[in-house]
């Protein structure tokens, strides 16, 4: 069922040769992919009958996608077509007939991508992960659970325990060729373990995660152990009253704010829809000078890395905010061309066809982040970060972060659900009781009020998001926190 990159490359090259011979064709791009998304879902509840590992599962897809530019009396028309599970000549003919049928006049479509530079990454996937068998998949899932249970048992907890989450393995291969001279391929493997565990009677929840591009360096048991450790550490949490606090956002909240608020607002898709607080602010100071944000899809060993985009463009660093100044937006080729002007141009490094973490032939290239990196101007240790706020709250995990009044307004809200503490005198004083505090703030206020950023970054992943954030901890002044859920107590 697996298809190798050689077969994908042959298919896209044959596709280009076929399309070149067709009437009225000006340009064409052929994309082919094979990928598999494997998930082993962890579900252990000590007080409720359970499966431990709920279900090892996978979904697999393969296909070919075409973008064809046709000559038309009115200018040019562009047509899109794809064919599922058939990358032979027959699949190409099928996809071409769909592209021809679907062609439209879109005045914003200017051209197909042209080659830009050379890729940085080569052979960065794990051949062992590409060949992973069912028993290994299942074993990795149970290892994640084992880590959590061992930690609980060592600390003499055997009841009221929950350990949930997943071990996910993504195997993907793609090739692309175009009449513009693009002819390349990519092959990647991503392994993630994301475990949440609880001692429910103590109202505590902890998070743990582990990521790798290679099985040999993948430690799902560490994720399980970390989640249990973190839950145990937060036993005895207390409520706080509503008010404005200085806070340190831990790595998960930093990743959450990036994935759900900041990065969507730093995409040309948001500019196109006039739905970003950064509209018209390119080159202006928008944040604390302590903050630098960029996307870099070419970081060796990072799980968001790719050799090339799904438009065949080598990945690399795209500066978004540099020392507080807005320096760029994430772009694909279509919107980079549309917004290209004498005062601004955008390198289209982020045109991906992601669907549930995979590079899918069914999707057209949208704009997706790869590895988002947050840097400080002068980074300090985590301990020093607590000293910076002196009195306040360390927020370790947040949940349901949404731009509550639309992205452009910048308002957001979320609740603090785990891994959090009250800070006094520059140190941890005691845990914060989970699910008792709601954050009500605005992303522009947050990035303007950053006072320090830590030097210890970690690849952080989130449920339902494609990107990885190389997240530090960030200290921010004056964040509105509201006490909630009094009736539960």
């Amino acid at each position, binding site marked *: 069922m697996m298809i190798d990159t050689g077969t994908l490359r042959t298919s896209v090259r044959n596709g280009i040769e076929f399309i070149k011979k067709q009437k009225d064709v000006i340009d064409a791009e052929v994309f082919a992919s094979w990928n598999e998304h494997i*998930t082993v879902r962890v579900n252990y509840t000590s007080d409720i009958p359970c499966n431990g590992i709920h279900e090892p*599962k996978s979904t697999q897809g393969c296909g070919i996608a075409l973008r064809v530019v046709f000559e038309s009396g009115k200018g040019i028309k562009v047509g899109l077509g794809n064919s599922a599970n058939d990358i032979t000549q027959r699949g190409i003919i099928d996809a071409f007939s769909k592209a021809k049928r679907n062609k439209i006049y879109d005045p914003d479509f200017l051209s197909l991508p042209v080659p830009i530079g050379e890729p940085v990454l080569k052979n960065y996937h794990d051949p062992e992960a590409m060949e992973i068998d*069912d028993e290994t998949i299942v074993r990795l899932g149970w290892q994640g659970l084992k880590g959590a249970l061992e930690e609980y048992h060592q600390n003499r907890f055997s009841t009221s325990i929950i350990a949930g989450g997943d071990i996910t393995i993504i195997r993907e291969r793609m090739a692309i060729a175009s009449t513009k001279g693009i002819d390349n391929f990519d092959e990647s493997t991503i392994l993630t373990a994301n475990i949440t565990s609880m001692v429910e009677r103590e109202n505590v929840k902890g998070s743990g995660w582990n990521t790798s591009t290679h099985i040999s360096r993948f430690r799902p048991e560490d994720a399980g152990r970390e989640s249990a450790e973190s839950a145990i550490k937060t036993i005895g949490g207390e409520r706080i009253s509503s008010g404005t606090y200085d806070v340190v956002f831990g790595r998960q909240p930093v990743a959450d704010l990036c994935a759900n608020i900041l990065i969507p607002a730093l995409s040309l898709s948001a500019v196109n829809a006039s739905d970003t607080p950064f509209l018209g602010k390119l080159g202006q100071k928008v944040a604390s000078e302590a903050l630098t944000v960029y996307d870099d899809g070419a970081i060796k060993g990072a799980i968001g890395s790719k050799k090339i985009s799904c438009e065949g463009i080598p990945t690399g660093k795209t500066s978004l905010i540099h020392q507080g100044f807005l320096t760029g937006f994430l772009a694909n080729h279509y919107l980079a061309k549309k917004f290209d002007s004498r005062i601004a141009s955008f390198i289209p490094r982020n045109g991906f066809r992601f669907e549930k973490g995979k590079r899918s032939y069914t999707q057209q290239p949208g704009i997706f982040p790869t590895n988002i990196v947050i840097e400080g101007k002068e980074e300090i240790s985590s301990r020093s970060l607590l000293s910076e706020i002196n009195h306040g709250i360390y927020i370790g995990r947040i949940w349901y972060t949404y731009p509550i009044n639309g992205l452009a307004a910048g308002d957001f809200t979320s609740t603090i659900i785990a891994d959090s503490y009250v800070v006094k005198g520059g140190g941890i004083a005691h845990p914060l009781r989970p699910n008792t505090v709601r954050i009500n703030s605005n992303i522009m206020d947050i990035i303007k009020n950053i006072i320090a950023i830590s030097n210890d970054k970690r690849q952080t992943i989130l449920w339902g998001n494609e990107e990885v954030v190389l997240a530090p901890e960030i200290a921010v002044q004056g964040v509105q926190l509201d006490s909630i859920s009094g009736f539960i107590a």
Partner: protein
Amino acid sequence: MKNCRYADVRLGIHEVKYAHAENGKAKGMDEDTALSFGIRMLAGEMCAWGFYSQSIGGSEARPKSFGEILTLGVQKAYARAIANAHKKAEFKPFAPSLTEVTLARVDPCRDIINSVFDEDPRAVPVKDILALCIKISGSMHSIGKDVRYAFLQVQTGIHREVFCSSEGACIDQAHALTQGTLTVVAQKAGGVPEVCHDYLGDLRGWEVLQGKNIYRQPLAEFAGMRTHETLELTGAEFLPATNEPVVVVTNPHFNALLVHEIIGHPTEADRALKLETAYAGRSWLLRDLQNNELGKQIASPLLNAYSDPSMNGYGHYKYDAEGTPAKRVNLIENGICKEFMNGREQAAILQHPPNGSMRATDPHSVPLVRMTNTVFAKGDKSPAEIIAEVKDGYFIVNHRIPSISESRENFRISAQKVYKVESGKITKLYRQGGITADSKDFLMNIDAVGNDFSVFPIPNCGKGQPMQIMRVGNGGPTLRSRAKLTGLRT
């Protein structure tokens, strides 16, 4: 296959046409057929799950090729179930709550359910769909100079899924689905943009977009109405937030999201049984099997809520993804928490009757407990009377975006519009506001339930890992309760 206890196969074919346009410019169109299957298997001495799925190409859809692919898929699902069962047995001494999977009994059904439509989606030319998108998005954009962005996407199609199980069930179900999705962004010069995102849709044919829908409006009128409302809001004042609860009247569109978030999700049995702890969260309604809110007062005696797949709406079906006949589930009766939506496995654990609430977005995905048409039941007071009785309060109109606590015990939901109510009269319009409350406080404080009732399409409910996006129906009548206002903090 040795020690195979149960297997089911879902084979689905989706025939869909869609197009989208923005600001009167074509952006894309397609018509396609997608075929895929998913296999669930229970096997092993300590019975455990295994699952496999994939899409199928046109050439593989021939019986011989398809049979070969399906056989390979069965072998994969079986291998995973056996490996999983083996590990479960190995871990059992270390983790005593590990248990063999048991499914609550249902009678295997054999049935064919055809899709319902007046105008066959397959007969609508995709070029006509694109032309409609161009025309309507162009009209939206030209309503005023402050309309910065107008986007419209339309899809129509037929979804058919065949379910067969090793117990003898064989169900062939199909439904039509037609939907229009719009986004409009309006902004006065130098002001903050106002964004509206909404849907029109039903499990029927092209007639949905011609006026056979909850709004009784053709798509063009609906899009025009939302655009005018968004423009009007750009000139409104920002709603000031309050530190204390105030009287709020919430309309059915707003209550669609409210019931979804604070009643629907916490009454899903898989969530209550902690299966979503790492993702979508738990439920404050079930602490554990002994300590829970079943049979207890969690809302005003005026309030009833139920989930009913037999009603029309996005949550309509006759059999769920396990072949269980769908039925109405009474979630809250006179303020008392009564039942959870469940699947066969959760029903067995809870020792409740299975109620047919398992669905998957497509055959690729494993079934999860899902809302159906989950609603607040209607009451006996007219909406006009509910507002007329308010001396000093706010009318919360149409939902926007939610943020809910982990166990659904607290919520903040923004509204498209908020009006001041003074001496029973709607007075001033505010923008960028909403309400926040602890769920139980809000439910207990309900003192009026309207005799109006609407079910709205909610096409984008996220749950599971990998996340599945599911269509559900949500709604209810007008309600009156108390909550804090969210908005501008001074």
